[in-house]
Each structure stands twice: as C-alpha cells, then as structure tokens.
C-alpha cells in the first residue's frame, strides 16, 4: 500500500488513529482504522464468470461524553479519510455524542496494556497472486468436467483485513485477519444431480482442487439410484458444514441481555437466564477460543457499533477461551460488561469462531456413516435457514445439493430434498453419535462466519417436514 502521510493523500492507518486521538476534545475517544484487500474468482458451467481485486479503507471514530445521567457515545465511520479530513469526522462524532442520551452499555474505556509489538507494521495485503496454483488446477478441473459430462459452479475468495485500534485510554492494538474459502457445486445429468464441497482456508496453500473435484465425482455417483421418501422424522447424519450452520444460529441467538429480558430460548420462566441448565445428556461441548489452531481470530473486542451482544465501550477487552455449553450444560451467554453486571454472570464477550465436540468421539464423517445401523439419511448441507419461533429457537430451512440414503453403513442412493423444521437446542439432546471435530466451511453463513470446527452428528428423528423438488 502506498502511504505518503501528506494531507490530501492516503495516510498510514496508525497516523490516522493518532491524529484523530490528538484532535479529541471529549471525555473519551476510540478510533478503529481498517485496511482491507480481497480477491475472488467465480465460475459457472465450467467457465469463469466474474472476478475482482479490491482494496478498502475505513476509519471509525467513537466519541464519549460523560453527563449528569451517564455517558453517551457518538459513532461515525468513513471510508478513505484523508489527514486533512479527520478533524471534521472527530467533531461530528463528538457532536453526536453530546446530543445523544446516556448509553446503557457505557462503561469506562478499557485501559491500554502496553504497546502492541506490531503496531507500527504496515497492513497486510492480498492479491490475485494467491490463486497462482489454484487457478490452473481449476482450469484443469473444468477440462475434466467438460469431457466427463459434469458442470462446475463455484467461488474462491481470499481476503485480509488489518485493524488498528487506539483509544484515549492508551490502547494501541493491531489485528490481522486473513480469511478465504473455495466452494464447488457439481451438477450432472442435465442438472438433475447436484452436490457441493467447500473448504475454508487462510492462504489457499492447503486447497487441493483435484481432491475437491474427486469428492464431487464421488457424491454425484451416489445419485445413480434415486429412492422415493415421504416427509417425516428420520435418523440423520449431519455433516460438519450443516452442524456449523445450525450451531452458528444458536450462537447468534445467545445474547445474555436478550435472554435476561425474557425473549429468547435461553430465558428462564419467571426471570433470569437458563445458564447452568442441562440442555443435553450427551457430553457435548460448544466453545470459542481466539487462539484455536487454524481458527485464529481477534484476541480482543473490536466493535464499531453497540448491539444486543456487543458494546463500543468494550473495545480492546481481552478475549479468553469460553465454553458456551460444557458437558451438555449451558455455561455462558454472549456478554458485554453492562450485560454481565445486569445478569450477574461472568463477562464472556463474543469470539469470532465456534467449535463443537462430543467427548470421546473419533473418526471421520465416512466412519460415522459406516457405523450407522439400519436406515438413515446423510445430508450434503443446509440452506435458507430462518427462525420460525424464538421461544424454542425453531428454525426452518432446506436440505441442499443431495440427501443420501444410508442403509447398514453404506450409501445406497439419493432421495429428494426436504424442508426441515428443527431447533438446534433440541438437537443437542438427540445426538446418537459423532465424528471427530474438523475444520469446516459453513455453507449458509460462510459470508459472515468462516471459522468453525464441528463434528458430523447422527441425530435421532430429524424433522423433514415437507418435500422440496429442487435438484
């Protein structure tokens, strides 16, 4: 990135942060400068369709003002702010803070704990060069697909964001977050067969196109035999991607404040929350850890807006490994400092990754299928998941890109897709068996949440409510 630092040209993000803080005239000030770069390839029907390489830059200024009834905040975000424009942004944030009513989530700004050793480092950048090995391999996969009667559709994306957080309380923190994913949808037989494979990555060095393509071929082959099935409740193997999509929705629904207010599945009748209540007899653990290998994410709070489970006042707060469910018992909910005081529960802010394991489970998804007795279903992934009833966290959605029929441990064919109605909270209590925990790409929420490790789960009586003719 070019960085001249002169007025009228792009400045270094650290310079923007320091300038904004030096201009602050109110009781407190937080500044987040973010530099982003991303590159992508998209394809359909064995040909590339769109592509791009983009760079972005944003500055968020949060001014705080202590008044007679409490502390208020004003938040402004602007892209590509020049040094000579910063004062206007700071003054506007301050004016908003002065005019605002006291914020319920206001708490003293987090004090600085020493300089970040990498504070002075430049932002990390990605370019299309990250696809240096991937693109030719993809071209070869297109050739194979054409010659063998398949069509490939998909998307590959790599992005890097670097955030600099500074505050009038002495914070100087820097975080680099790489992310990426490769997704392939394969179709054959006049698009009557469909499957999907996806992989999360941080640098594409671990993405093996040939291996992904081979899995597409294997799964399309399962559809050689079609089996008619009526709607109903079926024992079902949910692959890690499907488990992730359901558990991420549960995670997003775990605001302590909302539970305390009596309006979520985690609210206790009569008041309070269900923390401490057993959700499952199965020894299931759902947790987050900013240092989880391969899922590394910001070890401190980064918040550009307050909400039911986040607070701009908590920026810079250190994050720790947190069990949300431990040994089947609800252990913690998403907290801000304000909600932790309100609920009298430990301070457990949200962390940007999610893991699940069933104690003692080993083996792959294939091993879990092989150990499945009698008849069951094996899903490819889930799609269009939406909340139907917050009281039970009942979610609806569709199976997508192939529902396979398993009999005595073997895939014997493919059924239709279904609409499901299920609650992930209830599902935790109906786990029959699990695989080991593995890095996966959440199919539906991959736009927002790519850092997940989940097992495949076999659950009892998954509710396939109605038939979807989609193929």
């Amino acid at each position: 990135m070019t960085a001249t630092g002169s007025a009228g040209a792009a400045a270094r993000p650290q310079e923007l942060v320091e300038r904004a803080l030096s201009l602050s005239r109110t009781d407190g000030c937080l500044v987040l400068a973010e530099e982003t770069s991303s590159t992508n390839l998209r394809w359909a029907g064995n040909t590339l369709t769109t592509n791009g390489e983009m760079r972005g830059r944003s500055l968020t200024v949060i001014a705080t003002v202590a008044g007679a009834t409490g502390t208020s905040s004003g938040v402004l975000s602007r892209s590509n702010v020049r040094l000579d424009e910063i004062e206007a942004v700071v003054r506007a944030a301050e004016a908003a803070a002065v005019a605002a009513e006291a914020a319920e989530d206001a708490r003293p700004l987090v004090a600085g704990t020493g300089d970040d050793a990498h504070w002075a480092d430049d932002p990390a950048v990605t370019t299309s060069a990250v696809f240096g090995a991937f693109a030719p391999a993809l071209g070869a996969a297109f050739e194979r697909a054409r010659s063998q009667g398949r069509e490939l559709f998909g998307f590959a994306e790599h992005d890097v964001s670097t955030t600099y957080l500074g505050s009038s309380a002495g914070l100087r923190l820097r975080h680099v977050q790489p992310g990426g994913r490769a997704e392939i949808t394969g179709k054959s037989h006049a698009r009557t067969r469909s499957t999907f494979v996806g992989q999360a990555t941080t640098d594409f060095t671990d993405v093996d196109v040939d291996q992904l393509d081979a899995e597409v071929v294997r799964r399309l082959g399962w559809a050689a035999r079609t089996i008619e099935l009526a709607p109903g409740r079926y024992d079902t193997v949910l692959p890690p991607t499907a488990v992730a999509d359901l558990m991420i929705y549960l995670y997003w629904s775990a605001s302590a404040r909302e539970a305390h207010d009596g309006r979520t599945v985690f609210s206790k009748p009569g008041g309070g929350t269900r923390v401490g209540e057993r959700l499952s007899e199965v020894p299931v653990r759902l947790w987050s850890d900013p240092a989880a290998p391969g899922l590394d994410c910001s070890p401190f709070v980064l918040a550009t807006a307050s909400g039911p489970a986040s607070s701009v006042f908590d920026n810079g707060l250190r994050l720790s490994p947190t069990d949300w469910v431990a040994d089947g018992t609800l252990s913690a909910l998403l907290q801000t400092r304000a909600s932790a005081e309100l609920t009298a529960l430990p301070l457990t802010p949200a962390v940007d990754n999610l893991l699940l394991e069933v104690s003692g489970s080993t083996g792959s998804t294939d091993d879990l299928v092989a150990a499945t007795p009698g008849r069951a279903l094996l899903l490819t992934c889930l799609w269009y998941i939406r909340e139907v009833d917050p009281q039970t966290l009942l979610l609806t959605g569709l199976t997508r890109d192939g529902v396979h029929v398993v009999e005595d441990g073997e895939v014997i064919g493919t059924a239709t897709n279904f609409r499901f109605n299920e609650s992930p909270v209830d599902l935790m209590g109906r786990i029959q068996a699990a695989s080991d925990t593995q890095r996966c790409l959440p199919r539906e929420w991959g736009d927002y949440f790519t850092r997940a490790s989940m097992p495949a789960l076999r659950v009892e009586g998954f509710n396939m409510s109605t038939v979807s003719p989609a193929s």
Partner: protein
Amino acid sequence: MSHEIDSEFGDLGLQELSAAALARCVELGVEHADVRVERNRSQHLRLRDGRPEGSSDGEDTGFAVRVVHDGSWGFAASVDLHPGEAVRVAEQAVAMARLSRPLSTERVELAPEPVYAGVTYVSSYEIDPTLVPEAEKAALLAQWSRDLLAADGVDHVDASVHAVKENTYYADTAGTSTTQQRVRIHPDITVVGIDADSGAFDTMRTIAPPTGRGWEYMAGSPSGADSGWDWAAELAELPELLRERLVAPSVEAGRYNLVIHPSNLWLTLHESVGHATELDRALGYEANYAGTSFATFDKLGSLRYGSDLMHVTGDRLVEHGLSTVGFDDEGVAAQRWDIISGGVLVGYQLDRNMASHKGFARSNGCAFADSAMHVPIQRMPNVSLQPVEGGPGVAELVQDAGDGLYVVGDKSWSIDMQRYNFQFTAQRFYRIRGGKLAGQVKDAAYQANTTDFWGSMAAVGGPATYLLAGAFNCGKGQPGQVAAVSHGAPAALFRGINVLNTVAEAGR
C-alpha cells in the same frame, strides 16, 4: 420537491478520474470499459425500551473499473479517488481479464444501448434523511417507545430506523455518463409481551414498509396518502394486537383458504417470482450460492406460473420504489415490462451480456452493484403483482374465503434452491369463519410449492388494496451483495394452502 445532486459528490473529480481510467483501458485494447464512482451514506439507529442501544453513521466512497478484454470480464476497485490510482486500477482490471481468459469459454458481448451523455437522475423525496440529526431521530423513536411501553401488556420495545443515500457516477467507452442520487428509509417498531410465570413471549411488529422516500415518511398523515403511512394509527393498535396474539388459540394444522394482505404477500412474491425470474439464476450463474430456478429459459412463453389472474410486472420506474433508478450500472435506461401475463411466464430480468446471448434486443436494466467494491450483477427490479380494476376489497375476499385464515405482515421466510418449496409465517393470522374474521390464531406457517400456490390464486383485490412494500436486505452473489427492492401487491385469495402448526413442528 426536486433536489440537485450533492455538490460534494460532484467535487470528487468524477470526470478526471473516469477519463484517466477509460483512456488507459483503451490503450490496453479493451472492447468495453466502464468506470463507476459510488458514495453510499448509511445511518442506522436502534433504541431498546426508549434508550439508545446502538448507532452507526457510515459513508463508503470508492470507484471501480470494469472491462471486457479479449472477450473476458475484468474488475478492480479502490477507495483512492485520484487519476493516478484510476490508471493503476484500470491496469489491474485488464490484468484480471487476462487471468480469466484461459478459464473462460464464453465470450462477453454486450447488447446495444443508446448513449446517454451527461444525464442526471434524482429520486423523489422531500427531506434527505441522512441530513436529519441523529438526536432528532432518536427523540422521535424514544417518544414512540415511551408511549408503547405505557400500554398494558407491552414489556419491551425495539425501535430502529435505517436511512440511506446513494450517489453513483457512471461513464463508459461508448460515451454514456450518468450521475444519480437516491434516498430510502426503513423504520421498524417491535413490541414484546412476556408472561412472566410461564415464560411465554411474543412480538408484534409494524407493517409499515421501507420506502424510497425521505424523513417526511416519519411524519405520517391521517390518510397515509401524502407521506406514505399513518404512523399514529399503526402505533396505537400495536399493543392490543400483541395482547390478542399472546392469548390466541394455536392453529390447527391443515389446508386453508388464505386471504393474504400485501404486507405479507410482497415477500412471497419476492421469493417465488422475483428471484425465480432472474435470468442469471435460470441460466445457472447463481448455482453455487443463491441457487437456480425452476423457470428455465426453455419455458419462456409457455410455463403456466399461476392462475389467469396473475399479472406480474418488473419495473425500475415506480415513484418511491426501492429499486427505482434512472439508469442501471451498465448505462441502461430504466424500463417497465411484463414478467407474467395471464398466468404465463413472458419475461425475465436481464443484464446486457445475457440479453445479447439470449437474443433480446436490449437489456431491461437490471445490472447493479451495492458498492464500488463489487461488480454489477443481475439484480431485482421492483417486481409487482398487478391489482384487478374493479376487483374486490379485503372484506369481500374474506367473505369469498368462507373458512380460512387472513394473513397480515411478513415475519419468517425460507425457500429452496430452485424456488419451489417455500414456508412463511406472519405478524398475525386471523381465523376466517363463515366469511368473517374470528380473531387471531398463533403458531401458524403456510407452506406451498410456487406454481401450486400461484395456481390456487382465486381472486385478486382491486387497486384500493394495493401496497408498495419491500426490503432493504435482499442478498445475492459472491462476494455477497445487498440490494433494496420494492414489491407492490393487492390483497388476494388462495385456496387450499397447507398450514403448519409450528409448535407441533418443534415436536412439542
């Protein structure tokens, strides 16, 4: 009131930037190049129980260069608005096209479009909502919240307003240059009631739609006609609607005749017709993400989509429409056309490349992006179900239904990857017995397959039942893009629709 394009946007050096980028693209031998500069202002304010919970006030400015080089697309974007960076981004776009060439088998060709040089468009609004101070917005929402919290049975109130202003400059190598400005606003009020003993809770949300209007929308009017909504009336009835829902009987699952109000029907239209008639989906371009469509291109002109009463239009022209614009992000002028006529599929949503490949004379102007950072893709126009002149009112439709449910306000939605199987809930379901409303029921969801549902449409309301509703948050594409879109609909009657009990679905 007519407005001028903001001078601050014009002062960004649009012509110099685009001239530098387009000249470099021509030097590098492109067949086509376009430059798009966007400034998007987005403000969101949320109150919990009358107190500020969170706010954001963002402005994203940047530019993009898109080229067709040797038959392949190339795209690059940046936030540094100066001519030197424009040249670098132009070169990067061409480099992306060269990277794409070996992986592309289909050459990009653009359908012709007249040249529009130096034209401007400003949407229809009175008060720029992004210029209203946050404190003034908060004061209004706080007052509404306090009034609602004072009502029996209301335990919590969520109040929010989202205001957006978009400025877009577009210039291409054919000579078209357009400058546009649009605003939109989405207020949203939800009341929550809780039975402390049982822990049961429920909500009731306003059905006031998001709209392509300014802050004047919040003032409201008794008729709702001048500024678009009668806020006083809707807020006054929310507590009683919530109290009734909390004690309503649970619906019995089964088949029902449904009278669906446009505040709910717009979303069913969006999902089952709007998305299903996107030509990029029908051709498979969205197969990995949003999905495909059962309404494949070979069925154009023959697919029986619904009953004879079904007349659906696409447009980018209707006043206050969220997808209304002067020109799309390929320089194509806004239009109106039929998508379904007499129940038969007769049209699609197009961009210039698909229009050319599929033999259309021109695009109907449905290519756009949500920011400078994203490439234009085929997105949705305002897709609306037309009312029947002289058609029935809601009371007549309810009478005609005999035994059934009256469905008001959107809530939960979901549809499959080919747009067949959908399931929707609502803010409220009223039981219809003997052709009359007989109070609310709860725990209902209606589910159908698209052509079965529209085929069961037995009566379509008249213009007096028509409402232009919509959403700010339609998602599509990879990388993901968000678009605002309106859908007009009258009330309508559907016979024999599957209704689920959601408590039973949860296995309780």
